[in-house]
């Protein structure tokens, strides 16, 4: 799905070559400041490499319209912004952002169930707890049905249990709907348990 060749980004990231296959769940491990978020942002073209080429489906990502690419390769950032208003508003705003057809309450409720967020669509999104907000943000991304899901580890420290719960849900979703999932985590145990493949990034380099 992705092929990276001789990538350099500032002096933050250097990658000789790596391929990420379709329908494979990849976990990215590495210490803080190593370049994991930077790596994800290169994949959805939130940033551009100074050198080298990234291919998405064998086409240079610079040849995609960036917005078109970001609608296929959706990233859930480390600390997602919850939009003002209700949970339903969050879904509707997301649809408008991505220029998508209005899905409707039934689909919203179904997604809330998938991320085990037992709330009403009328509930205020701002009143949700940290972990619940994370799940709502995930639900918004799932609504977009991306080909690739880039999941950055939440920076607000969720407890291990909550984090694992969220990850198992995403992995479950990705497998069931045959999506490609690339997720950052600090926990080798979670990576071992849920990912098909593990990549380590330390000081801007992929190490074996």
């Amino acid at each position, binding site marked *: 799905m992705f092929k990276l060749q001789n990538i350099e980004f500032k002096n933050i990231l250097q990658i000789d070559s790596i391929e990420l296959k379709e329908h494979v769940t990849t976990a990215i491990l590495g210490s803080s400041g190593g370049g994991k978020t930077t790596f994800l942002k290169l994949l*959805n*073209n*939130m*940033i*551009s490499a100074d050198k080298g080429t990234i291919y998405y489906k064998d086409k240079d990502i*610079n040849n995609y319209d*960036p*917005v078109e690419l*970001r*609608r296929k390769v*959706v*990233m*859930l*950032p480390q*600390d*997602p*912004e919850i939009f003002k208003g209700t949970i339903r508003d969050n879904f509707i705003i*997301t649809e*408008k*952002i*991505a*220029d998508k057809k209005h899905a409707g309450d039934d689909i919203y409720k179904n997604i809330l169930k998938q991320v085990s967020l037992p709330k009403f669509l009328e509930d205020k999104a701002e009143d949700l707890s940290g972990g619940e907000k994370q799940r709502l943000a995930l639900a*918004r*991304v799932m609504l*977009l049905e991306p080909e690739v899901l880039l999941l950055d580890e939440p920076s607000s420290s969720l407890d291990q249990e909550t984090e694992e719960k969220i990850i198992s849900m995403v992995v479950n979703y990705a497998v069931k709907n045959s999506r490609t999932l690339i997720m950052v985590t600090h926990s080798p145990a979670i990576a071992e348990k849920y990912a098909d493949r593990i990549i380590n990034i330390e000081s801007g380099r992929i190490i074996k």
Partner: protein
Amino acid sequence: MENGMVNIQLISLVFAYIFVFILLLIVKKKKIGHEQEIILASVRMTIQLVAVGYLLKYVFANQSPFYSILILLVMEIFAIYNIYGRIDAEISLDFKKTIAVSMFAGTSISILFFVLIVIGLEPWFRSDYFIPLSGMLIGNSMTGISLGVNHLIGGFRDNKRLIENYLMLGAEPMYAVEKISNRAFYNAVLPTINSMMGMGIVFLPGMMTGQILAGASPVTAIKYQIAIMMGILGSVTLTVFFMVNRGSKTFFNKRKQLKIK
């Protein structure tokens, strides 16, 4: 006396400078400082006004489209540099260009419309009308655009994370910043709207006061004031609209990535 206007004698004018000395005295006594600045400001005002007075006297006596346009350009350039000076952040060359072009285009369109259609000035370049009216439109647009620019920059800075979240969900840049640019536009136009609210009750506008002092009937003065107020509103609206629309785009690069740090 000219045109029934009470002229100020040169000698009496000197007395007006007493106010500067009062200020200087207070500042010195209270050790507030900045005496040099006050003196400089007074001297500059005097020299600048005298120079402009003689310049305008010459220009009014020698009507020519060339002079009108030349002075218009000088005012535009001065206004644009003034806007740059009022921006409290570093901005891209692209944004600077946008500001200059918006200012120039917005005010020019409004001035032409105003002079040709609203007042029906004949000839259109009649400088004793053309120059002061243009000055008012340019001055107000300058204030509006400065406000708009600072609100736009602040909006981008404060909402960087939100904008990035929008982009990551697949938003077109202009959709992601719609609220920010709308707010910048509104905040830039608001003072003009507010000044219309209080007009005639809270204060008599400078131009109207001037005309009445110069002996015009208050009714004529009001007609001009209404017209000029509309002209100002139009000019501020256009310049700020151009600036916000094109300006928002300068915060993104070709790959639709946010350029601010």
